[in-house]
């Protein structure tokens, strides 16, 4: 066992390495183009090895490390690392998938002019994500949380010349910011109630009941709503598919969007029953709506994006029903099979140069390796026995039924809707398989299009590796129950998660029906109001545009108009009023004050004239006046 100092230094190294590599890559510029990917992947490999080392050192212990950061009188925010089983599990997942994605990207973006920028941003993302995973203090977690938002922004907008990409990037950041504002208020509420944001101290101090605690829990959950694209902040994630496909695999499927689930796991002990009920409800709405939206998409990535939203909803249901282990289990399996699906989709796009599934078809022959990888991952997603997704989904469903049993009544609607959504999942995945890999090839330009080839090993190997990790036996020896899996030994579950045969049978039969329906869905469906509802994702975007974006912008213009026409005019009027007053005073000055002065001077003038006329220089008159004066004086004296 290493001593704590060594471990702390290792953790620092883990975070600093990717930031360093990212900064270097960005500063070096195009000179780095050819090497950026290799260097970044090498550093990620080092990180992966270090994570495994840290994992072996930690096991199921909980370690915390503090480094002073912000210190003012009365408030200290240290950078705290929390190292437990969840931490190192996430460290390994993030590093592992990041490594695969980086290797994949070296080939996938080979012709890209600005690869240094791509790999630089990717490294920034890895560093920020590791920060979230390691943070043991909610403020530190929040800081990295926002940084992840930045790297997501930069990567979605990587092809900034495309207006759609630029718009999607902005939308992602702003929608995340909305969630984050709630998250921040939640942190303040915690601070207000218990005086700390340290997770370890909170678990001792925080009393989680009462409406204030529910409000706190809900505010914190807002962070998850933003980052994990839960209802109502769903719509940024499908748009985020404008980014390069490997980015979608890493950030918008496997890791960043799972950060919301991770957050819920970290703060689960703070959540009151009421807060959990809200969370469960939102998870269910999200899962069902997104699964339906995936149904009629024609873009290969959009299907996967909506599927991700839907699966995140399932994980949120797991958290809401206090089935932390189940939710984390699904997070893990989902990270592998969804990354695999995205990378497989990338491989397909690489081959056919389109994302429109209507222009694909029959690719299983041209791209056999990609097909096999896709099929395994899709089976896992659909929840077919012997694949990882089956195990984890069963765990959540079982937990949800157990929770509903305890709550009784209406609560049963939640597991039932979840089962229904899993049927939809099977349906849209079967449809995707049918459209992409079966039938015959339908290129947009049948004459001019070149024959499709399988992608190179740097694209297929990561897909296949992820497919292998999506097989059920990787997680549990018993293909029908996760009870004995290593995962449950690591994260002991509370409550009943046993393999209830009827739940398994129910979900399998729903999956079969769903899959069969999806398989039978025609290539080009006639547009009905129901299909349009799905295609346009319940018209949420239009709704937001009309209800929120436009009123906000209008308010901005109104407020500016007010500023110009009212406040500034008042100032101008005050100015003009002063000038007018000045003129009036000036007039008064000329007419009255000056008039008086002028009058006075006129008077003096006349008097002067009068007296001057007396002093006329004639001696006789002087003598005469002197005599008169003398007589007067004498008169008075006598």
């Amino acid at each position: 066992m290493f001593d704590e100092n060594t471990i702390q230094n290792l953790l620092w190294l883990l975070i600093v390495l990717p930031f360093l590599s990212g900064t270097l890559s960005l500063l070096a510029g195009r000179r780095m183009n050819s090497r950026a990917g290799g260097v970044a992947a090498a550093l990620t490999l080092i990180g992966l090895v270090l994570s495994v080392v840290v994992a072996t050192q930690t096991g199921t212990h909980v370690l915390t490390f503090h480094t002073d950061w912000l210190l003012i009188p009365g408030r200290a925010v240290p950078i705290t690392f929390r190292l437990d089983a969840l931490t190192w599990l996430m460290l390994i997942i993030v590093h592992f998938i990041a490594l695969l994605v980086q290797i994949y990207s070296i080939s996938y973006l080979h012709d890209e002019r600005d690869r240094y920028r791509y790999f630089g941003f990717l490294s920034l993302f890895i560093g920020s994500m590791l920060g979230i995973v390691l943070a043991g203090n909610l403020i530190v977690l929040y800081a990295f949380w926002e940084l992840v938002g930045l790297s997501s922004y930069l990567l979605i907008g990587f092809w900034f010349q495309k207006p759609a990409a630029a718009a999607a990037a902005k939308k992602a950041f702003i929608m995340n910011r909305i969630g984050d504002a709630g998250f921040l208020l939640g942190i303040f509420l915690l601070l207000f109630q218990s005086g700390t944001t340290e997770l370890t101290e909170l678990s001792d101090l925080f009393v989680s009941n009462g409406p204030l605690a529910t409000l706190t829990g809900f505010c914190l959950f807002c962070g998850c709503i933003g980052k994990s694209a839960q209802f109502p902040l769903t719509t940024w994630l499908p748009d985020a598919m404008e980014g390069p496909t490997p980015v979608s695999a890493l950030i918008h499927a496997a890791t960043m969007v799972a950060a919301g689930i991770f957050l819920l796991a970290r703060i689960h002990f703070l959540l009151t029953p009421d807060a959990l009920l809200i969370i469960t409800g939102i998870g269910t709405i999200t899962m069902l709506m997104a699964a339906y939206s995936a149904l009629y998409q024609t873009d290969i990535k959009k299907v996967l994006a909506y599927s991700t939203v839907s699966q995140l909803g399932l994980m949120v249901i797991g958290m809401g029903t206090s089935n932390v282990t189940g939710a984390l289990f699904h997070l893990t399996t989902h990270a592998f099979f969804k990354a695999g699906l995205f990378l497989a989709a990338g491989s397909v796009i690489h081959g056919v140069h389109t994302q429109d599934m209507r222009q694909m078809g029959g690719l299983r022959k041209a791209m056999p390796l990609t097909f096999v990888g896709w099929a395994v991952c899709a089976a896992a997603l659909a929840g077919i026995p012997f694949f990882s997704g089956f195990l984890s989904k069963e765990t959540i469903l079982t937990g949800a039924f157990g929770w509903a049993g305890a709550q009784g009544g209406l609560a049963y609607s939640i597991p039932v809707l979840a089962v229904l959504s899993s049927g939809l999942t099977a349906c849209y995945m079967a449809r995707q398989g049918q459209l992409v890999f079966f039938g015959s090839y339908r290129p947009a330009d049948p004459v001019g299009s070149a024959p499709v080839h399988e992608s190179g090993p740097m694209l297929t190997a990561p897909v296949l590796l992820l497919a292998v990790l999506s097989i059920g036996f990787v997680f549990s020896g018993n293909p029908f129950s996760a009870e004995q899996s290593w995962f449950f030994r690591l994260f002991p579950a509370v409550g009943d998660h046993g393999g209830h045969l009827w739940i398994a049978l129910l979900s399998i039969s729903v999956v079969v029906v769903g899959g069969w329906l999806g398989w039978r869905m025609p290539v080009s469906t006639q547009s009905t109001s129901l299909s349009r509802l799905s295609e346009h994702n319940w018209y949420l975007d239009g709704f937001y545009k009309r209800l929120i974006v436009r009123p906000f912008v209008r308010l901005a213009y109104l407020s500016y108009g007010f500023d110009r026409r009212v406040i500034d005019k008042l100032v101008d009027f005050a100015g003009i009023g002063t000038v007018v007053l000045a003129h009036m005073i000036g007039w008064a000055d000329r007419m009255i004050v000056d008039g008086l002065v002028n009058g006075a001077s006129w008077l003096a003038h006349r008097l002067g004239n009068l007296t001057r006329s007396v002093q006329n220089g004639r001696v006789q008159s002087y003598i005469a006046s002197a005599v008169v004066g003398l007589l007067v004086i004498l008169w008075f004296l006598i």
Partner: protein
Amino acid sequence: MLSSLLFIPLLGSLLVVLLPDSRKNVYKWITLVACSLELLVCGAVYAVFDPAQADYQLLERFDWISLPLGSLGVVSIDYLVGIDGISLPLVLLTGAVMLVGALSSWTIDKRLKAYHALYLLLTATIIGCFIALDFFLFFLFFEFMLLPMYFLIGLWGGPRREYASIKFFLYTLAGSVLILLVMISLYLSVMDPVETAINIGLIGDRSEITDDIMRQVQFLLADYKIQSQQLVHTFDLRYMAHGGNYLPDSFLGPTGEIVIFGLPSRMLAFLCVFLGFAIKLPVVPFHTWLPDAHVEAPTPVSVVLAGVLLKIGGYGFLRIGWGLFPDGAAEYALLLAGLGVISIVYGGFNALAQSDLKKMIAYSSVSHMGFVLLGIASLTSEGVNGAVYQMASHGVLSAMLFLLTGVLYDRTHDRRIDSYRGLASTMPAYTALTAIAFFASLGLPGFSGFVGELFTLMGSFQSLWLPGWMTAVATLGIILAAAYFLWTLQRMFFGPLWSRTEFTGQLTDLTARERLMLIPLAVLALLLGLFPNLLFNLSNATVAQWIQRFSVE
């Protein structure tokens, strides 16, 4: 040492005036050298400053004016300068921003002599405001600052420069009148315990003063034992901040119950001072001079205006408004914080509506300065530290933002956002630095803006004076900031390259001089964001002492 901060730019200014016009290429070098020296001295001050000490340091004092007025006591105005943990960050900021502004002034090409002389004069007056500890001296600098500023906007500005400069001048002057009134009433209400002790024979000269003697004088004062002829009135801010130095029954005495316009005199005085500095900060609804001044001012003047001048408002709040009238600040905490929140949200909405880049940044300044007011009004350690931090941070970032605007304006003389699209394709370095400045300004962790906003919001939420919903409304500001900055980024820099045809070929990337101005500021913002204790260490002790006057027993 502090005096040299005043004399370096003044001497530089004099030198510029004395040199003949034939030497006009030297002017910009004089400005640059003077500002570099200034920054060096700031660095030295930073090195000498003892952050553990809460009181004023590096004091320099000379008797300046001393005039016996019979029964009115003795008028004494001192030349008194010194710094503490609140002013030091701002002094450092001034040093840095003025140097960057000097570099940016190289593009000025008309009436060089007047420009550089005024610029250096401006530097001296701004520094003077931050280091003066005598209210009269402070007010002198505060007023004198208007003169160079008025001409810098009015002579070198854009098309509506006359309107903007007069508006700026009159607006600020109106504020100063209020401050002047309060200054005089304060003067009449406060005694200088040291000089008074000498006058009544307790001590022989200043060096013999001890805390005991001060207390003794204050007791005598409170017991009406000192005759008015022997009282020495003072403008010394240190004495004004101490309740014991107020004459009993005087106009602004702490116990005085004089009521004017239905308000106790001290409350009224507080509101007057607040208004005076609120115009400077600026606080909505006294902000409309700012967008006009910014739009018309030449780039370096905008940099100085946003970078440091606005901070004098915040500094005035801390030192004079809140510092001398804690009772008023506590009484009106809700109103003041409310104005702060209004500034944050209103400024944000207005920024969103702008089509002129510079105006957008001007309104974003209004929004960011709202955080300063909110933090100070919270009367908490987090809030006040955060406010000081936010001022320093905004100084760096707004300087950077206005320089970036200037880069574009120098090339095309067009600042309208919709005149450009996809600039990232042709000006990558410019785009990168703009993105850094935008993200830092919208409060991205890792940059300085985050810490300031986090702490001011945290302070307002923890505050006993403020309700929680205020903070909730204020967080709308951080969402709006993301919206207006990212929308601008999207409209101007992303998408396919497009601009008005007459600009083709003019949109070249940053020059070496521009990089030299921008990169240090970006690094500074990053450093402050990563190691916030660099700054908090300076302000901690002083703020801790400052906040004590609001502690609730």
